[in-house]
């Protein structure tokens, strides 16, 4: 186990900068998830920690040691690849033993570690199989097993579940989380799936275009997104954004005028916006409902029935589509005009540059 520290890390391919000055501390035993859309540099960043990509600026530290110029093999990291990267000509046992044999681990020790990993991952019946005779989920288990037996300082996962089907993904998600609890090892996990990030992480690192947008615990990011990007990226269905203008601003209390002549109160950091400023109001779908006294008028386009909840997609006067998550079973008819009511939850406010100006505390229920 070791902590991982990034100090102003950057990466350029030729003249193209793909990672910009990233600084981050991952504590010992922490489960950190890098999340972001494809091309945001999350995999590159992980591969730089692994030593599979050269660091062109800044420092990478593992366990307090600067490892910029240390070969990948000597960094004490184990990596689980998206396409498993199992050695196709070796049995499951040999796949797991390969690294240990190369390091000169004693035979009895190798056998003990493989037996232990196989036990954790329920791989005992498959130890003598070749990878091609196994399903995707089993292969992914082997890939994880290969990492476990190494007993590394840091586990690195590069989108390990994206080749699995939805049901298996959910199952493996729980298993990896369990594994983290059992091993207590430092783990860095890359995914483009915000659900994986929300469910597994101790802390989430949201990346966009090679920059860190925000770092924090899942709920912290969900409830206090620092900007429009993070607000829109985390949460499913995504947050509703309504454009408006500040009509009145008194201290932390403001009134926002939306299209259709609706004025909504919200609370912001004092002085962060002025009267007349363009702002974006962010409302989570669960903070939007249908009720007779609703302030907003919406034209219902689609109703999605999910069983426990239903999602109502409606067009509001300024033309944007909003999603409301309803818990009761009485769905409004498609094509009807309904009043939309804003719940007691947080009304996120973003200034013209997209930065959150929502009052940090107070608005929480």
């Amino acid at each position: 186990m070791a902590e991982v520290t990034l100090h102003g890390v950057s990466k350029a391919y030729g003249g193209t900068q793909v990672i910009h000055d990233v600084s981050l501390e991952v504590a010992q035993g922490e489960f950190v998830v890098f999340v972001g859309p494809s091309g945001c540099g999350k995999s590159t960043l992980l591969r730089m920690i692994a030593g599979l990509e050269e660091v062109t600026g800044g420092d990478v530290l593992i366990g307090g040691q600067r490892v910029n110029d240390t070969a990948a093999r000597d960094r004490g990291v184990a990596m689980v690849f998206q396409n498993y990267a199992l050695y196709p000509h070796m049995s499951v046992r040999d796949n797991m033993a390969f690294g240990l044999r190369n390091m000169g681990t004693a035979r009895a020790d190798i056998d003990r570690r493989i037996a232990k990993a196989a036990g954790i991952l329920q791989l005992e019946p498959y130890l003598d199989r070749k990878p091609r005779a196994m399903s995707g989920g089993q292969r992914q288990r082997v890939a994880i097993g290969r990492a476990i037996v190494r007993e590394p300082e840091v586990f690195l996962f590069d989108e390990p579940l994206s080749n699995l089907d939805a049901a298996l993904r959910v199952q493996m998600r729980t298993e990896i989380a369990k594994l983290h609890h059992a091993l207590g090892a430092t783990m860095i996990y890359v995914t483009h799936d915000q659900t994986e990030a929300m469910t597994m992480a101790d802390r989430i690192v949201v990346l966009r275009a090679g920059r860190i947008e925000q770092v924090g615990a899942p709920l912290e990011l969900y409830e206090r997104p620092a900007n429009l990007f993070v607000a829109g990226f985390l949460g499913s269905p995504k947050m509703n954004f309504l454009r408006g203008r500040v009509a009145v601003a008194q201290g932390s209390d403001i009134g926002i005028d939306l299209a259709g002549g609706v004025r909504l109160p919200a609370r912001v950091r004092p002085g962060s916006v002025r009267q007349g400023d363009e702002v974006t109001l962010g409302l989570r779908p669960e903070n939007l409902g249908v009720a007779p006294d609703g302030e907003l008028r919406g034209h219902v386009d689609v109703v999605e029935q999910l069983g426990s909840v239903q999602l109502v997609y409606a067009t509001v006067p300024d033309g944007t589509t909003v999603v409301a998550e309803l818990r009761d079973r009485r769905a409004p008819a498609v094509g009807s005009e309904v009043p939309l009511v804003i719940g007691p939850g947080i009304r996120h406010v973003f200034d013209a540059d997209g930065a959150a100006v929502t009052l940090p505390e107070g608005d929480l229920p």
Partner: protein
Amino acid sequence: MTAAARPATRSPRGRSRSRGWLTALLFLAPFLAVYLVLLVYPLFLGIWISFRDWDLMAGDYGPVGLLNYQDLWTDPVFWRSTRNTLYFALLTVPSMTIIAMLLALAVQGPGRIRAICRSVFFLSSVFSVTVVTLVWQMVLAPDRGLIAPIVQFLGFTPVNYLGSTTWAMPAIVVTTLWWGVGLPMALFLAALGSIPKELYEAAELDHASRWSVFWRITLPSIRHTVILVIVLQIVAQFQIFGQPFLMTQGGPANSTRSLVQYIYETSFRDWLVGYGAAMAMVLFGMMLVFSMLQLWLGRQGDDR
């Protein structure tokens, strides 16, 4: 999908099947015609001729049973040519495979210099056998050749390689390697390129040495290409003809006369087509056996 499949299942089973066959045959017809006329027919014609006393000028004297094959048994030149052909194949096939693989390993990957090297190494395959043998005759010439000064510099007397019973065959082997290494190299390059790079990254994290990476990852991954190259080389090198025919005319003292050259001379210089055909059948049999053996060896361990 089911909707699209329905009309087919509704029509009588037998009729739809025969229609399918007809369509398949129609598409195969152009290839089949060429294949039957230019490959299958000559093969069986060759077998048939090998059992007859057929003089190219005087015509067919009728069947002679196994007489042509009996004559082979006591023909010293046939045995000499067979031995030469086997010796040539033994020298060429393994070295060609290994050199092609080493070259491919050296020039694979990114980089301008590697790209240039790939083209250069492949380029020699473009030349015709006449050009290649001419070039190498000049290279090997004992007086003004390319090698002579090097040999002299090292303190030895230059040898007339193509005039030596010991060195003529190795010289032809070297010429053949230089000429033919391009295609197997290209095959190896394609195979190497298809190995996922994550395997190498995983091996790096697994502390694998370069040696261990080659033996445990690269070689198993390109095994099928290795087999393919060896079989192609066996088929190609057993038919060695142009290089010795142009460089040594089979000499000195029959030391480079190949089976194909002897078949050619028997059939088209001495006009004994029946006898030549019998030899061709023996060559065909040898190539078949060696190729099948190689394929069979290659399949071992595939299903485990």
